[in-house]
Each structure stands twice: as C-alpha cells, then as structure tokens.
C-alpha cells in the first residue's frame, strides 16, 4: 500500500544521503522524495512517498527513527492528511492550440506562468492523481516537457509534526 512518510531531520550535510541510502540498502521503494528547510532553519522536513506491506512500513519508520540525525518520523497516511505536488508542464501552444490549452489549464485550476510564440508553461498544484489526470487529458504529442516536485504532505487539523 502507498504511504506518505514525513520526516523531521537535522539540516546537516549528508542527512539526505543517509535517508536515501537506507531505502536503497534495505530494498524499500521510494516513489518520491521532497526536502527543504522548515521555519527553523536548523531542521529540514522531508516527505517520502513509499509503498509496502504493513510490516515493511513499520520497519521503514523504525529504521528511519534509528538514524541519528532523524528527529521525528510520522506516517501521515495513518490518519487524515493533505498531500500536494507541484508540476510545471511545457506544452505546445501555437495559434491553433492556444485557446484549448488555456481552457484545459483553467479547468484543472492551473496557471500559465510563461508564454512564448508557440509554447505555454503551466503551473499546476494538487494531489499527484490530479496532475496525472491533467497529463492524461492533454493531447500527448503536445507535451514538450514536465517536471514534478513529488508530494509534500501535512496532517489535517490538530495533527502537528514539530519538535
């Protein structure tokens, strides 16, 4: 099953490779991994989307907790949470496609953030599934380039991950 794991980690050189190294050394999946410093610059927050049986996920959280630089680990998918991913997608938008492309972006609540004579770059935020759906909805030959950040996650309501 797919799980979204949030990790608070000391913002130190090498912390990322300890975590990604753990996943590869123990044969765990990484679907996506995002990381950036938090409001407290001494700490980074990482969101790892992974998959596995309950036993595997239990081991993943235990092994992550064992890393000396890891401060806290939470499996967000254990309860209500919000997940968002950002995608920048460059599409062909000549005079012929321009209208359609803009309308499509609007339907998905995307924004055109860069324009050239024959391209649009659209910014789209949402659950990974929504980004997938947008890609599916486009004429595949119109897609020139995509870049996705991978999911970031946060618990709903009073569920707070903080030191």
């Amino acid at each position, binding site marked *: 099953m797919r799980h979204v794991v949030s990790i608070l980690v000391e913002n130190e050189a090498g912390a990322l490779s300890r975590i990604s*190294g753990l996943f590869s050394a123990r044969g765990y999946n990484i679907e996506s991994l995002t990381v950036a410093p938090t409001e407290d610059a001494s700490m980074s927050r990482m969101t790892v989307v992974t998959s596995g049986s309950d036993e595997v996920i239990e081991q993943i959280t235990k092994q992550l907790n064992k890393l000396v630089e890891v401060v806290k680990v939470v499996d967000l998918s254990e309860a209500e949470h919000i997940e968002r991913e950002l995608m920048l997608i460059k599409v062909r938008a000549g005079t012929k496609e321009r209208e359609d492309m803009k309308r499509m972006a609007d339907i998905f609540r995307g924004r055109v953030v860069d324009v050239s004579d024959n391209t649009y770059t659209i910014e789209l935020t949402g659950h990974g599934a929504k980004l997938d759906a947008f890609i599916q909805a486009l004429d595949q030959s119109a897609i020139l380039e995509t870049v996705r950040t991978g999911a970031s996650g946060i618990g709903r309501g009073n569920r707070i991950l903080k030191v």
Partner: protein
Amino acid sequence: MDRIKTEELSGAEIVVRCLQAEGVEYVFGYPGGAVLWIYDELFKQDKVRHVLVRHEQGAAHAADAYSRSSEKVGVCLVTSGPGLTNAVTGIATAYMDSIPMVIISGQVPTHAIGEDAFQECDAVGITRPCVKHNFLVKDIRDLAVTMKKAFHIATTGRPGPVLVDIPKDITAQRHEFLYPDSVTMRSYNPVTKGHAGQIKKAVALLQEAKRPMVYAGGGVILSNASAQLRELVKAMGFPCTNTLMGLGGYPGTDAQFLGMLGMHGTYEANMAMQHCDVLIAIGARFDDRVIGDPKHFAQNLRKIIHIDIDPSSISKRVKVDVPIVGNIPDVLKEILKQVDVQKADQPALKAWWKQIDEWRGKDCLKYDRKSKIIKPQYVLEKLYEITGGDAIITSDVGQHQMWAAQFYKFDQPRRWINSGGLGTMGFGLPAAMGAQLANPGATVACVTGESSIQMCLQELSTCKQYRIPVKIINLNNRYMGMVRQWQQFFHGNRYSESYMDALPDFVKLAEGYGHSGLLIDKPEDVEPALRETFKRKKDLVFLDFLTDQTENVYPMIPGGKGITEMILSEEL
C-alpha cells in the same frame, strides 16, 4: 563578558586530549600523511598507548575485540584513503555485532576535499552503511564536541561503531579546548526503560507457560545482563539457549542450558525453539542463521516476548506478541520483581523437561572418538579441559568457529569473541591481540583454520612487538572447511576452489616472526601439546593441528530450511 579561560590547542592535541578524557587506554592504528599531526601528539604523551598493527583491518578488529572482552570502547586511528578503506571490513564487522567503537580517520585538507587529492576517499560516504553514525569535522570549533558525541553515540542505545573523519588542516589549526562532560542531541534519545504494561503482559505469559523457552543473544552480553538472565532462568526452572553471539550469557555448563541454537545449534535447542508455547527472546534478533525459514518457524503457534534496546530488531523477521523496548538488565529486573514463581505450572514444566531430555538423548554433537586422524572436535574438547574453561577464545570464521562454539562451554560473558554477523575471516588473530591487551592476565587462544589465519597473518609481527602471548589453535584441514562442506552437501562434491594448496609451513612461519610453532598430526599428541603450550604464559605459540579433511559440522540446517529440518551426523 566573563569567560572561563581555556587553553588554546591544536586540533591534533584536542583529539588526543579527548581520548585521554575518555580514559582511552589503547589506540590501535597505523600512521600516514593525513594523521601525522595526531601521531605527533601521541608521541608527546604517555597516557594513551598506541598499538601499531601491520594492516588497518587488524586495527579495527583489535579495537573491536578490546571492547568485546572488556566493556570499554575500542578506538582505532587510521589515515585517509587506503588507511580508511582497509579498516572498512573491521568497521562493518563491529557494526553487524553492535560493538561500541570509535574510529578516527585522517582526511585530506578541507580545501582539497573533492579534488581527487592524493589518498583522498569519501570516508563518510564509504562507511555510511556500516557505522552507527559518522562525522566529517569541517570546523575546529566542532572538534571536541564531535569527539564527545562519537563516544556518546557509540556506547548508548544499541551500541555500534562511530567514525570521526578529520581533515589534516583541522588537526593543525588552533582553538581553545573545552571537553564537555556530556552532550544532548534532540535527534538521539534511545529508549531505555521498558513499557510497564508490556512487562506485565510478559510476566503473565511466563507464569502461564507450559512449554517455555528462553532464547538469549548478544544483547545480553553487550548490556551486561548475564546475572539477571541467570536469575530469571533459575527462578523459573526454564530451559535456555544462547545464540552464537550470546554464548557465555548463560553458563554453558548449567543443566538448564540446551547449547547454542541455529544452523549449527544442538538438536534439543532447535526442537525446543520450534515446540515451545512461550518464547522469551532477549537481545536476539531471529536472524536467518538462527531460525532459518521464518515461514517454517511460524507453523507452530507460540506466544513471543521480545526484549531489545533496538525497536527495529523487533518484528523484523518474526511477528512478536509482547514487544519490550528497553535496557535488558532493567527490564529483567522488573520482570523478576513481578513474577510469582509459585504460579509456574510445575507438572507441565516437568513434562516439557522430559521431552527436552529425550531430544538431548540424541547426543547430536557425537563424533568418532576412535579416529586415527585428529578430529577437530577433540582438539576443542581438550582445549576446554586444559584451559579449565576459563580462557578468552577468539575465532575466525568457518567450521572451526562452529566447533569452538559447540565444544567450548563458556560460563562467563565476554569470553567468546567471534564475528557472528558479518562472518569475517581474518578476525581471529587481531581480535586475540585486542582481547589480550584488555585482559593482560587472561589466557587468550585464537581458534582458527589454515584459510582464515592467512587473512590477517601479518599481525604475528604486532604480537611480537608488543609481546602479546596469545595461543593459536590452527585446525588445519587444508580446505576452506565450511565451503567444502556446503559443496559436498549442496553442489555434488564439486570442491570448486576450496582446497588450500601451497600452504606455508606454519611452524617455520611462526618462527620467522620470532614465535614458536608446533605441528601436531596424531591424536595422542594433542593433549601434551596443548598442556605444554598453555604453560608458556609469556610466549605466543602457534599450534598447527593437521585434522580430518572430511569432517563436517553437525547438526546443520541447510540454508533457507526450517529450524527442525536438521541434517544430523552419520554417527547418530
């Protein structure tokens, strides 16, 4: 602003002062360009003694065994690049067996890092998967506190090796020295106290058990819990087994001890593991060499209590009913306080012991005692007898290791020193050096084979330099015995590359290094040779026993099979 005046020292002096502050007695190491300033400071003092090994792998193994045999932290010091990579096997060995060790490695100067400088390697990157933690010290202001953290992390929670990589320029810079008494880290706070509710559940299960089994591993030794383990087993009248790493954790000569379990464990220990109704696992981790196939193990229903300091060891291969994360001696004390021995089901226990005695009746370690060729088991029995069961035994890896584990009965912890997790050939001799230096008055013997001993043989020279009088028991069957055994059982007798041709004359070799050697090729000479050897308290003696080439280790659970699917000796 008031400031306590502190001394300004070089980075190298700071390193040495930190070692002194930690009470480090020995550093095992090998100098080189990146650590010259540190060696210079070692030269100027006499509190920390340096042992010059002949290869950095030996330094790591010696520091490791120094720790295993003494409870203290092992320290080794190596230079950058090849110095560090040579030590990696030793670091990984210590990591797999959770040994507290601090490794200091030199690094090229900070400005040269990443430029493929001479003797540069990414020490932190290379060792990352085989250390508990590692540090690259990029700023001299962090040096002392990093050293403190290294010792703190190595020794607390589940112990393990910690590497501190120090660039050469840092060792030359100067900074005020203040060694902290303690460190706190928000990201590192190992749990030590067992959960009260879980302990209560464990107590209830233990009292209700009809077919109990105590399965204790290396965690008992590392946490110094032997006394509490013994007390619990004795109070309850339960049977007890030890893993390869746990030998000596429970007295090997006690009637309630069923011997080692696992791939080459006793018939009775393995049968009792499978057929018990309540299993208490203490500082052990149900690894593949212990329970074999976890699916087969799960076929019999039993309640499992698991005590371990490391939560990730619990429910990794086997699902447990009562997990207790905590420091073993404390958890056992709590269990002992609460358990009511009167509540134990005596008739059921009696019937269980009757069953166990039946299994014991198989005499699964039986071997041919009339053989005209030296049987390795016989050498170990005699070694046990002649050393009064009181020696520190180090071993290499292979058949000799298993026979030593089966036939030498360890009554005390920290007397059996072997590479159980990583299975590192070459461990035995440098380990014996470390154990002897940690225990100057003790009898130390290295049980090895002609293949393993050749992997760190150069340390005979170190033994000469520091007058380390270990005894080498070489069970020489001219084969990588365990490889040969697997090839016989599972590869149609095709002994691919497992024959050790062109062996040196070990007696001459020992003599070449300034020691004594003796070749023993007849069973009747085994005992006198051992007797003579152990009288020589001050000398290293290399005993080369020519043993039966075809002898196998029994019982044996083939790889991937279930714990009761043992191959037994033809002698039975």
